[in-house]
Structures are given as C-alpha cells and as structure tokens.
C-alpha cells in the first residue's frame, strides 16, 4: 500500500481531476481513502472471530452540464481512475438531460493542510494477543452467572487515511483513528430474554482516540456488574405505565439527540433530497430563528472540532473546515447541518458536514458531533427532586417518523423513582412523544462533570446505503409529563 501522502496518491488524484476537466467537468473533486479495520469478538469464552480488513479506493465527484456525477473504483491505477473520472462526467451529462436547474455551490476557500486524530497510544501498535486477553478477561467476569446464557464482547479499531483534492485547488490529507469496545450480557429464562450492555448498546462505544480509550472503558471491571443487572431484569417488575417524569441517562439522551435533533436539522432532508428514503424534516426554513424547539435548558450544537467524537476531523469530505455551529440556542431552532450545495439554496455558507462512507460513496450531509450542551443540574439532584418517575438507561429500541416528530424509544432497564429516591428496577420500559413537546418539557440537564462524548456507529442514510460514525456529547437530563409504558 502506498502511503496516503505518497507521490502515487497525489498523482492519481491529479490525473483524475485532469481527466474530469478534459471530459468537460466544470468542477471535480477526488477522494483517495484507505481504511484499515480490526474487529475482535469473544463469545461465550471463545474467540469467535478476529477480522482484519483493508479497504482502499478512489471516488471522483464532478459537475458537468450543471449536474452531478460520481464514479468510484478500487484500484490506485492512473488509467482506471481516469476512466472513472470520464464515467462520472458521462453520468452527469445523462442526468442533465432530465434536470431543469443547474447545481450551484456556495463559495468555499480552497484549503490545504494535514490533520491527524490525537492519540496517546496508537491502537494498531497494541498486539492482537493483548486485545484478545482483555476480551477473555471481560468474558470470564460475565461467566460467573450461569443465567447469562449469551456473553459477547468486542473491540474495533479503525484507521482511515483520506486524501482530498479539488479542481478549485484544495489538497487535504487526514488520518482518523477510532477505538471502540463493549460487552453484552444476555440472560434468559423460560419466558424472558434480557440484555444489558456496557458502555453502550449496539455492541460497543467508540470514539476518535487511541488504546487509552479502551483502558478507560474498563470492560473487565464492569462486566460482572452488567451481568448481574441482566439477570436481575429477568424477574424485575414491568415498567409502570402512565404520564410521568422521565430522566434519561447520557447514552439514551445521546440517542434522543441523534434521532430528534441531528436528523431533522440535516438540510438535505429539509430540501427533499432524502424524501424517498430517510424522509424529510419538520424543521422547515421558515422556522429558522423563531421556532421554539425546546426549553431554555436545551442548547444543541454541531461541533466537528470537539474531541474525541466520531465526527471530529480537520475538514469535511468537500474540503470545508471543521467548525462549531449552534442548531438550537436555549430552545430556539437556530441552524442546520449543511453542504455547499444545500447552503447555497438558503443563502448561506456550508458549515462542513459532508461525509462519505469510504471511497465508494458520494459525500452527503451527515451528523458530525451533535451535542446537548451541559446544563447546571446533576443526576443526583434530578432524582432527588422527582416525586414520581423513571430513570431510563441504555437504548434498546428506537423509531421515529419520516419528519422526525413522532418517536418511541425503549431502554434496556429503568429504575422507578418515588419521592426523590431510586426504588425498584423495572424491565421493558418504552417512552414516546412528539419532538418539540418533548424537548420543551426538559427542565434539567446535568453539568459538565456528567457530560461525555458518546459514539453512534450505525447511522444509516443515503442510497446506496451509507453507514456513518457520529458523535454525541450528552449528560443525563429530565423531562416532565412523558408517556411511559412497558413493552407488552
């Protein structure tokens, strides 16, 4: 593999841009991406899999005759890349025959530079043996409880090298490093199955960092406690039903932000680009600056400069610099996630949220780090000042309508709160609501001490489908008058 910043990569991208220009493109950009992934999984005391993945290729995006075209090829061969560039122009020309309106891009400076994820210890320098050993110790801690019938823990490490060059003169090189890990303990009885996860559900928690992140997670040290919680859930009472106060732990708050703030602020959805698949948004441009999205406690930001989120980088995938934008300012809807094309449609500049799933996919608007800014409360204080409600931990199910209004979430467990005290463990809780009403009912957000950056590694969007890794800074938060019930 040639190094990312090698002469080979630079020549390939220059040849691609030249070929696109010669074929008639009025704009072109080229991304060369090399992704290395290590995935290790231990299940029920056995190393179930150790998968080592290498993925490399080139994606060329062009505008020709006023329309977009994109072609990708998996070889760093100048002739193949030139062919792909010419094919991208053919695609654009075919599209232009249907279209009435030419693509227009908001201006952006042509930048040059390098960015690397700051890491204390490169996870790829840690031996596979050491990684397996950590997982086996995690598994052993869960194995102490026989009712935990399915034990699974995993680690994942990603190194992505990205080279971006555009016909406007941008040349950008980035190396992004991610480290992730997690465990699932599943307990079963004759009529129930309950899973508890740590640090988060969906297999793992992941951030842009090195091996130090895995040490900080302390999977072996938490495995026994999580396994005990899974067993306890088998016989826990069903979650109470009714309209009550809900306190979300930080991981579920992150998921709530993801679905009900991150996605509806994507400007491509607002403009209809995703209408046939991911959907649209209730946050239409006429609401910008005036619509009360939430209470004054609610400030939400998009911040791709904030380490160690999975949406932290130097530049997005059309060369716009990482930046912080306010989406909801003390409850008022204030901004979108945008691209050069969509920003131009509403008379703004891009705020740098175009991201592609590897070399073979077209960059589209994606969340970066969408954060619920810390408040001044604490989990302890929120519980102490709650007469009756539930404290809900760790996402289990999530669903929201195509405009991002009507949602229902389930969590792995809940704790009933009575007269300011956490009382009994309850199982199968679900809560539901409408996005603005829900966020307007938020009366407390915990402060910086309980605020943490969480990672979502399974955010799907686009056709062909793209999976994106995004970050969410969040802290425990409280909502009043929420509909809660047990899954039946």
């Amino acid at each position: 593999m040639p190094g990312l910043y090698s002469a080979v990569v630079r020549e390939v991208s220059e040849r691609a841009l030249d070929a696109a220009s010669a074929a008639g493109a009025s704009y072109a950009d080229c991304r060369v991406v090399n992704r290395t992934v290590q995935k290790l999984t231990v299940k029920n005391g056995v190393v179930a899999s150790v998968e080592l993945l290498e993925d490399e290729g080139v994606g060329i995006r062009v505008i020709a005759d006023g329309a977009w075209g994109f072609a990708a090829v998996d070889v760093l061969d100048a002739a193949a890349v030139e062919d792909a560039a010419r094919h991208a122009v053919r695609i654009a020309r075919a599209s232009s025959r249907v279209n009435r309106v030419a693509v227009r891009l908001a201006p952006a400076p042509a930048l040059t530079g390098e960015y690397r994820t700051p890491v204390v210890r490169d996870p790829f320098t840690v031996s596979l043996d050491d990684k397996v050993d950590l997982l086996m110790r995690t598994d052993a801690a869960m194995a102490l409880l026989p009712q935990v019938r399915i034990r699974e823990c995993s680690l994942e490490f990603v190194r992505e090298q990205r080279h971006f060059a555009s016909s406007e003169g941008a040349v950008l090189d980035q190396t992004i490093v991610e480290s992730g890990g997690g465990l699932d303990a599943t307990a079963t009885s004759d009529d129930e199955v309950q899973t508890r996860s740590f640090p988060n559900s969906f297999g793992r928690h992941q951030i842009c960092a090195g091996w130090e992140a895995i040490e900080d997670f302390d999977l072996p040290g938490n495995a026994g406690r999580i396994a005990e919680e899974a067993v306890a859930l088998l016989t826990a009472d069903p979650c109470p039903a009714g309209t009550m106060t809900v306190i979300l732990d930080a991981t579920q708050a992150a998921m709530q932000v993801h679905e009900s703030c991150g996605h509806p602020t994507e400007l491509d959805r607002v403009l209809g680009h995703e209408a046939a698949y991911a959907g649209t948004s209730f946050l239409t441009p006429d609401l910008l600056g005036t619509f009360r999205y939430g209470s004054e406690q609610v400030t939400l930001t998009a911040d791709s400069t904030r380490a160690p989120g999975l949406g932290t980088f130097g530049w997005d995938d059309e060369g716009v610099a990482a930046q912080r934008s306010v989406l909801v300012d003390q409850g008022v809807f204030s901004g979108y996630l945008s691209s050069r094309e969509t920003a131009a449609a509403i008379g703004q500049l891009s705020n740098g949220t175009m991201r592609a799933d590897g070399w073979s996919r077209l960059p589209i608007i994606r969340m970066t780090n969408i954060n619920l800014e810390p408040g001044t409360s604490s989990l302890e204080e929120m519980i102490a000042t709650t007469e009756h409600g539930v404290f809900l931990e760790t996402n289990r199910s999530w669903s929201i309508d195509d405009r991002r209004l009507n949602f229902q979430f389930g969590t792995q467990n809940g704790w009933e709160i009575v007269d300011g005290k956490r009382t009994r463990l309850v199982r199968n809780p679900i809560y539901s609501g409408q996005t603005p009403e829900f966020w307007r009912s938020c009366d407390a957000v915990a402060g910086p001490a309980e605020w943490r950056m969480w990672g979502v590694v399974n955010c799907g969007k686009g056709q062909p489908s793209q999976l994106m890794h995004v970050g969410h800074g969040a802290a425990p938060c409280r909502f009043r008058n929420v509909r809660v019930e047990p899954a039946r």
Partner: protein
Amino acid sequence: MSGPELLAIGDRALSRLERGEAEVMIIDDHSELTRFAGNEIHQSVAERSRFVRVRLVHDGRCGVGEVRGHGEHAVEQALAAAEQSRRVTSVAEVSPLPQPDGGADGTVAYAKATAAATPQERADRVSIVTSAAARRNLDAYGALSTTTTTTAIVSSAGVRRAATTTQASLVTVVRGSEGGGYASRHSSDINALEVGDLAAEVVDTCERNQHATAIDPGDYEVVLSPYAVTDMLEHLAWVGFSALATQEHRSFMKMGERLMNERVTIRDDATAREVFPFPFDDEGVSARPVTLIDHGVCAGVVYDTPTALRDGVASTGHSLPQPNTWGPLARHMTMDGGDIPWRDLVASVSRGLYVTRFWYVRDVHPLRTVITGMTREGTFMIENGTITRPVKDLRFTQSIVGALDAVSGVSRERRLELGEGASGVLSPWLQIGRFTFTS
C-alpha cells in the same frame, strides 16, 4: 470478471497455502444508481469493486482476512491477514469447512440488459416517473439502481461455486402539497420493472392521499399491502427463523406448535425464480428450500454449518460469512398466496385501515416479536368495504406473531419487495383482524 475467472484467482490463492485449510470468497461488484428528488436527478453514482475474504483454519484455530481494493495484491494480503488473525484466536471447536454437496450453480437471477444498463437508460426510466408526476403537478423522488455481482467461493475441502446475478430496483415516492404515495418494483431484469405501471400506481396513491385527517389510535382491522408485510416477515427472519436463535433460547419459534393462523405459510426458497434466486450460501453450501411456518405451525428454521453440527442435521445453506456470531439468515422468503384478489380483502372490511407501507420498524421485544414503527405514504380508512379517505400516519406497536395469528385473509396476488435489510421477500396482501396503533 466472470465466475470462472474469479474461481481461477481463488484456486491460485489455495495453491499458495502452506498449511491448514482455507476458504476464499471473491465478490466482484458493479453498481450504479440514479437518485431523483423534486423531479430532478440530484445524485447519480457508479462503483466498481472487488472484495476478497479468506477464512484460514489450522491447528484448531480460525482466522479471517478481508480486503477490498489493492487489485492483484488483494488475495495475498487477505491470506496474510487471515494468518495473522488465526495466530491469536483460541484453540476451540472450529467449524469445519463444508464438503462439496454436488449442487449446481444453475438458476440465478441474471439479465444482460441490467448488466449493460447505462446512465442514460436509467435517466430515461426516471424521466417516465418524473414526467408522470409533473403532469399532475406533483414531485417525484426515488432511486433506480442496477447491480451486477459475481460471487465465487473455493475451498481446500473442494468447494468450487460461482454465480453472477443482476438486480434492478426502482423505488419511488411522489408528493403533493398535502401528502404522498409510494411504490417500488424489483427484478433481475431492468426491462421487467414495469416503470409505467409503477408511475401510475404511485401517482394514484399520492393523489388519493391528500389532506389526510387524524384518527384516534387503537385497535383496527387492517389490510396490509405487500410493502408492509415484507417488513414484518424480514423481522421474523432476524429474530426467530435462525437455528442459532432457537439454540440460544431467544427465538419465538416452538417447533410443532401452531402460533399463527392456518392461512399463514412462510418459506425460504433461494431457488424460487421470484425472489432473486441464488444457488449457494456464503460457505458455498447449496441453498435448500425450508418451510418455516406451515399453515400456522412452526415447521423449521434455517441452518449454517456450525448450527447444523450442534443439532446433528445438515446445513440448509443459509450461512453468512463464517465465523460469525449472528447465525444463519433466511434471505429469500416467500409467503404463500391465498385464493382471493386483494381488493376482495378490502371489500370484506366494514371499518378498518389500508396500510401502504411501514417505516422505521424496530424490535421492541424480540422474543415476543413486538415491533414498533410508523405507517407512511398512504394510510387510508376502509368503510363498508371501500377505501374512502386518507388518514394521518400512525405509530403501531404490535407483536408480529400476534398479527399473523389474527390473519383473516390472504390475497392471491403477491409482490416482490426488498426489506430494510435488502432481503427479497415475496409477500401477499394480508387482512388482519386486529392491529394495534399506539399514537
């Protein structure tokens, strides 16, 4: 590259093997997709790639290396990665590489027209939809994709399988100022997509779905279109039709027990021409038809080699790439049709709902097959046997098994639809006596 060419690459990889056994999977993919919004093509893309996966087994250890890109060096790199991986895995009961089963690489979904489709040909078909919408002052959104995939698997155990398939899919939403409609068509042959019929269907649904009014949530009798039925069947495959799910006691399946209405028969049949037939699984084992639900009775689950060994049976040819922790998967499901037209199902409902499609369906309680999701782009009131008026989208929270137990009618007509997980499912319209909408 052709199947024989990929097999030759796999053979060369095996010849480099110094010790142990190996399985080499090579997938060549050429995909193009044209996406449209507001009657304009806003994204159109093409991708060519080769994926090489090596499973290496030696001394009771198994390693996996995967490489996409790297041209001629891909196989070498995958072999080296697999050996690196193998060295750190624990000595355990490694699932053996399957032996050749004599299966033929015959029936596959392939059409030259799809493999050769150009961006212009896709744009021409898209314009049929956008023009139909524009004529009615509506806006069309959607995507037309064409994919050609050649898969080859060779192994030290003697497996040599290869097949080339094509797939064309057109998915559309047409929107007016106060509502939208949905339609899709899928086929191995782009010329069989019936684009004109699709355009008429989606425009008609959109025009009927304007100015929807809200109704109270609650239990309703429903007629679900195949688009919605497909989502339910795909979720059953994920949570219960796998042998691993039954072995781990997390499946709803109780063999021999009747859990659903006798009108319900669900099969997985990778040889069926209607559901993108494919001759072998990701271990190169021939895919056998499996009856999953037989007239409402739990009849079978799908197996891969590890789960089959555990139960002392033969693999049914439903493996995902090995080793994995997910287990086998039914990816070619069909539900038997009934004997009456779907419109007669509607005619027999005195008060209920017609649901065009579901959206964002997620498992709430997998063991109980409880799912939640929204209706989308075409939910209508049925009154006295007639679809009368559109209603606003509703959230449902419902056990799939419970819904299939309450089936009171199955249509003669069936449609191929792709689920969210991209499985091809051949589904009928279903009349269900009670379906729970929660908000």
